């Protein structure tokens, strides 16, 4: 069985992370911003799994489990905040949040 170079896995993780970053920077719908954050978290998890595959250890998978837990908690809180924002402003446009002063 031929092996895969480690840097190809890490470059894939980097490409996915950068795509998520572009999504966070460019989208104005807050649901899309949260989805792009998910893409970025998933890319960092992929980097941990690649490192685990490089060394043949289980620690990388444990770090992935931690990231998974973090992502689940973050999504729950973030979606709750989106629901509150939609109730208050009747929109999902993030630029209305600049009115939240004082």
């Amino acid at each position, binding site marked *: 069985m031929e092996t895969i170079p480690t840097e190809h896995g890490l470059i894939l993780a980097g490409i996915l992370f950068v795509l998520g970053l572009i999504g966070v920077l460019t989208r104005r719908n807050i649901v899309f911003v949260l989805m792009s954050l998910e893409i970025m978290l998933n890319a960092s998890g992929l980097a941990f799994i690649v490192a685990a*595959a490089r060394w043949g250890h289980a620690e990388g998978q444990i770090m992935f489990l931690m990231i998974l837990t973090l992502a689940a908690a973050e999504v729950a809180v973030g979606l709750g905040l989106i*629901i509150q924002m939609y109730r208050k402003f009747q929109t999902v446009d993030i630029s209305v949040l600049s009115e939240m002063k004082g």
Partner: protein
Amino acid sequence: MSLLFYLAAFVAVISTVAVILQSNIVHALIYLILSLLSVAVIFYVLGSPFAAVLEAIVYAGAIMVLFLFVIMMLNLGQHTRDQEKQWLSLKGWIFPCLLAGVLLFQLVSVLSSYDLNMAPETVGVLEVSALLFGPYVLAVELASILLLAGLISAYHLAKK
């Protein structure tokens, strides 16, 4: 095996690009599920079957269903889709894409100086769970507290 890796990587990148370019939010969510499933295939190829299964169950299953519920609750219709198309102007895309491209170029140039191959052996559930409930048991407890805090705050925030 390596063909499977590159195929799944191709699908993951294409579907992620589709997520950030899509104006229909439900289509974007389905593309995101496709991307997560192909990343799960990559995990399996890299010898982490436990992480692959969890990626499919927790990410592509639970978290994405949560997204779907919220999108259904918000009831974003044709109006939002037109607004999205209007927001997706080329002017707003060029500068962030340029910055992100510079970052990616730096990352690739740093990474391509390494010359290491991945170990082909599989690390199964037994090794992971022996470590998880051995030296890392405190991390598991902290993760459970984090999830509990997330649950309570989500309940509090989504309450009327």
